[in-house]
């Protein structure tokens, strides 16, 4: 029943995978992915070809492929209440934050440096801080230079949408086939609470007038992208009490205009970040509130559940940030692109991926035949490859899956403070882990000690290492059958 015990670690022989089992810090599949949970057979094959190696657009791909962002476009044409562009700290890890601003030439050097060392690399993105469509000269120069050296890398951008309609033609010309627009409202009265001002047509607008212009530009930009067949993901920041209910309306609008994915992200708000929301005490949503909203949105535009809200200069698999290994001062002055590692890795993934798909459909069968109406929320510790291959104490995040009569679906990830730092187990952080896992029935990991297992049990959460190194779906299928099927419980820790 279990999937074969080969792991990508063993197969690829690359730097990343060689090191990861031994190092608590390599968080595997955790940083910032963004994508569709659709399986290949549910989607038309042209679209699947476009997203199958894109960790952000495909949930399946995010187990195998990595993205990197370069911060080359710091100028922005609007102000958002959740952004403080003065903040720039190398020790801070949160979305939009970046410690190294690059010129297009420096960016090229960095992309080649990463491509040579991180074979999973498939996507280069230009996101915040700043707006890639507004700071267009830098964005364009970077893409042109990189595409010339590494022909098969996918290019994508994130934008607030204000300048987007002016750039669609050039984006299409440059083969940018993935665009993310942040859309937080379709009602300018709500927009006025999120955006203090925009700069458009050589002047600053405020209030409802500003939000109206932004809204119109966002909608026409989305329509233009759809008309050209460019896949568009919509990011929305969920701000409790401001736009949480309204996002249902947003979801309808963007679906009608052809958005491929809708990614609802929690507001991150901390007074220390110095944003307007941070300072005014606006709170962010809790994990279960976010999930509840996402559940209500099912049936509208497809939801992305695996976004990790990565830093703007993140490097690596989603959930992992190796950005600090590739700062400019660590790169040689002259780098030449060497395609060999990336090519070998792709061949390995092609095999592993077929294998996992087969395991997945088998697992689905188990859930269906169990014939139960119940659902099970499962948290998984993984560092990539679609397997349960991380120790409980080393996990920096858990991927959460729901098994129900409808199947097995990924519902999101929850970040935790590592319980086991440098071999010492931290009691306080275990409390944090337990509260983060609220609502979860069972935790699957490669290994867990007796003590944390007992503590979790007191908190109402079971944990087991019985399925260590299995494919995630295989384990969940077996678990579901054991819990709800007619067969007796197969394995508990």
């Amino acid at each position, binding site marked *: 029943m279990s999937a074969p015990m080969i792991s990508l670690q063993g197969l690829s022989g690359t730097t990343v995978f060689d090191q990861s089992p031994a190092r608590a810090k390599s968080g595997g599949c955790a940083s910032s992915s963004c994508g569709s949970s659709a399986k290949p057979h549910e989607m038309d094959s042209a679209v699947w070809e476009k997203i199958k190696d894109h960790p952000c657009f495909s949930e399946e791909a995010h187990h195998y492929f990595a993205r990197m962002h370069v911060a080359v476009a710091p100028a922005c044409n609007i102000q958002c209440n959740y952004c403080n562009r*003065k903040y720039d700290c190398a020790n801070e890890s949160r979305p939009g934050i970046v410690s190294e601003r690059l010129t297009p030439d420096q960016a090229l050097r960095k992309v080649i440096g990463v491509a040579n060392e991180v074979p999973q690399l498939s996507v280069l993105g230009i996101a915040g801080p*700043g707006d890639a469509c507004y700071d267009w000269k830098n964005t364009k120069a970077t893409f042109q230079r990189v595409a010339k050296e590494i022909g098969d890398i996918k290019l994508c951008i994130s934008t607030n949408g204000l300048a987007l309609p002016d750039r669609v033609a050039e984006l299409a010309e440059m083969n940018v086939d993935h665009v993310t627009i942040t859309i937080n409202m379709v009602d300018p009265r709500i927009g006025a609470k999120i955006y203090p001002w925009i700069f458009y047509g050589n002047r600053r607008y405020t209030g409802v007038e500003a939000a109206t212009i932004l809204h119109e530009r966002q909608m026409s930009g989305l329509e233009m992208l759809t008309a050209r067949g460019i896949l568009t993901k919509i990011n929305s920041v969920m701000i409790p009490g401001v736009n949480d209910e309204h996002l249902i309306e947003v979801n309808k609008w963007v679906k009608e205009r052809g958005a491929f994915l809708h990614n609802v992200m929690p507001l991150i708000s901390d007074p220390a970040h110095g944003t307007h929301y941070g300072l005014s005490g606006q709170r962010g949503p809790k994990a279960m509130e976010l999930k509840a909203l996402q559940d209500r949105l099912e049936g509208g535009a497809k939801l992305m559940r695996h976004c990790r809200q990565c830093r703007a200069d993140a490097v690596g698999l989603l959930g992992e940030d190796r950005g600090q290994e590739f700062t400019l001062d660590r790169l040689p002055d002259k780098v030449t692109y060497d395609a060999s590692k990336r090519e070998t890795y792709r061949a390995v993934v092609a095999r592993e991926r077929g294998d996992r798909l087969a395991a997945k459909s088998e697992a689905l069968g188990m859930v269906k035949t169990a014939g139960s109406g119940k659902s099970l929320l499962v948290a998984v510790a993984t560092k990539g490859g679609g397997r349960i291959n991380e120790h409980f104490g080393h996990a920096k995040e858990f991927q959460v899956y729901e098994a129900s009569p409808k199947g097995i679906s990924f519902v999101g990830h929850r970040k935790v403070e590592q319980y086991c730092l440098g071999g010492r187990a931290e009691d306080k952080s275990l409390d944090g882990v337990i509260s983060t896992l609220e609502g979860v029935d069972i935790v699957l990991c490669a290994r867990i000690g007796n003590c944390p297992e007992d503590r979790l049990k007191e908190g109402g959460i079971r944990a087991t290492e019985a399925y260590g190194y299995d494919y995630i779906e295989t384990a969940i299928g077996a678990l579901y059958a054991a819990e709800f099927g007619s067969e007796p419980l197969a394995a508990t820790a």
Partner: protein
Amino acid sequence: MAFKIIASQCTQCGACEFECPSGAIKFKGETYVIDPKKCTECEGTFETQQCASVCPVSKTCVPA
């Protein structure tokens, strides 16, 4: 008649540089600076000073 940039508040985003109609703003050393000889306060070109209108930090592009 010219504008200046309060260097300690500047985020170095560069937005003012490419909005300035007079080519008066350049990156010098650590920050952006306005050349007072070139700055026209945008008079005759735009209703408001472009640098001040696009700058994300209030009171950073101000009359010299």
